[in-house]
């Protein structure tokens, strides 16, 4: 449910002119809901940024999410995998 919730909030922000990117843990939900920019991560529920007390990994996830924000050639909806 969390995956859909953040996507719906993000869509409203995007409608107001804010550039949004959502992290998604369940790819089939991202495909069904279609947030403008989504980064799918291969982690269990509860661990969207990978692992606690691992700032380096958390920064890698953030960098991948922000790369979607900076990608001017992307066409909506964008769903990319974090690998």
């Amino acid at each position, binding site marked *: 449910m*969390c995956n859909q919730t953040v996507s719906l909030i993000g869509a409203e922000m995007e409608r107001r002119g*804010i550039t949004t990117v959502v992290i998604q*843990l369940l790819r089939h939900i991202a495909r069904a809901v279609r947030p403008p920019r989504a980064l799918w991560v291969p982690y269990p529920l509860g661990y969207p*940024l990978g692992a606690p007390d691992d700032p380096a990994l958390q920064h890698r996830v953030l960098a991948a999410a922000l790369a979607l924000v900076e990608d001017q050639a992307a066409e909506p909806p964008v769903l990319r995998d974090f690998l």
Partner: protein
Amino acid sequence: MAQTDELSFRYRAFLKAYRWRRIDPVPWSPLGKPLAAARLGLVSSAGLTLAGQDGFDSGVRGGDTSYRVIPGDATAAVLEDHHRSESFDHTGVRRDANVAFPVDRVRELADRGTIGSVAPRHLSFMGSVTAPGRLTRDTAPAAAEVFVEDQVDVALLVPV
């Protein structure tokens, strides 16, 4: 990797019949400035609050769609887990809230100059919203208004 088989049988049966809300048309607002000049705000659905804030109410039918304002200078160490869902492992969030609400990490991004600044207000939701009517009608527009007021350029939204 997150799998729905991590979930209880009852919840899986519910999800199987659930009709996901499709965003259509997909809105699109490209970033009109360099990321290094952009202000970034966080939205997390991990149900985190500050001490003294009202907790989320898991008794609300269809889900508690309210949100709490988390100041941009709050540290992860002061965030408290109020998410009632048993569909995910809370251990990680309780050990380091940055794993679902990376408040410390985005301040580091601002310190490094990767982003221009951190929003004065981040937003905390509890994501177990099965009936998102109130969310899309009331709370999401109110949340968007907070970020518009604060001139947020980029919103990063994190489920749990």
